[in-house]
């Protein structure tokens, strides 16, 4: 599968774009860095969810499952998992009573990056500073690097499953 390293390579590209100019960075470079960092995390989460729930899929079926994910649902999930207590959508029931801070961080970073990507790609008035972009890329790298140590927890499974089936948690029968 040629795209298996896509998240890591996108992140490397984001880092390069953020540091492209020596002194005053161009807004174009910072905008592309934000957008690229978002897609790194987007592809990373989809890759990990697909691997976790369909580990032996053929390449063709892996690619089909990959396309089931969408930005809007993932944003809603990211907002919900940024909190310590995660509630089932449209319900008073709790999904997680004590969401680990590590998942809160990755979810918050995703929600933030997605919103910034929207500004970076569509808002001509948006302005970014290099320090913020560099730090967000560093956090994204950090959570991707730490992934192996936490990926088999029940909370991570709930998070990954939610990225695909968020509305289904509220289904009664």
């Amino acid at each position: 599968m040629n795209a298996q390293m896509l998240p890591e390579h996108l992140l490397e590209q984001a880092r390069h774009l953020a540091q492209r100019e020596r002194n005053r960075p161009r807004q174009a470079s910072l905008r592309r860095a934000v957008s690229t960092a978002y897609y790194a995390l987007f592809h990373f989460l989809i890759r990990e969810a697909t691997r976790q729930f369909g580990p032996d899929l053929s390449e063709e079926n892996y690619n089909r499952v990959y396309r089931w994910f969408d930005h809007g649902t993932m944003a809603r999930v990211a907002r919900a998992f940024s909190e310590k207590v995660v509630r089932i959508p449209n319900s008073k029931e709790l999904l997680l009573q004590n969401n680990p801070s590590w998942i809160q961080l990755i979810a918050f970073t995703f929600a933030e990056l997605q919103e910034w990507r929207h500004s970076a790609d569509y808002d001509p008035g948006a302005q970014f500073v290099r320090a913020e972009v560099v730090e967000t890329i560093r956090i994204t790298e950090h959570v991707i690097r730490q992934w192996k140590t936490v990926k088999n927890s029940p909370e991570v499974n709930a998070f990954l499953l939610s990225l695909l089936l968020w509305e289904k948690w509220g289904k009664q029968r």
Partner: protein
Amino acid sequence: MNTQGEAVYDTQELERTLRELLAPERLPDYVLSARYELSTDQYGEPAVRIYLAISPESDQMLSNDKEKLEEYSLFKQDLARRILELDSGYFPFIRMVEAA
């Protein structure tokens, strides 16, 4: 209640907390000023956008100082956590911008 019959959060408490959290003495020393806007995200969900103004020199300094940048990150995470804990439904989007 809004038109969909959902409870509308009273933003007074949120705004009071924001003013406290963004008081000059609570901000890192390189932040010249802070402001917030209550708005929505790209999907129309409630959002609070917080802008921390810094100088170009501070941007350059922070970009090259990993320790300071990590401190900023912790400050931002703490700010976001405090806002989320209010359970207002307003999601925080916090970032530094260049001072006018």
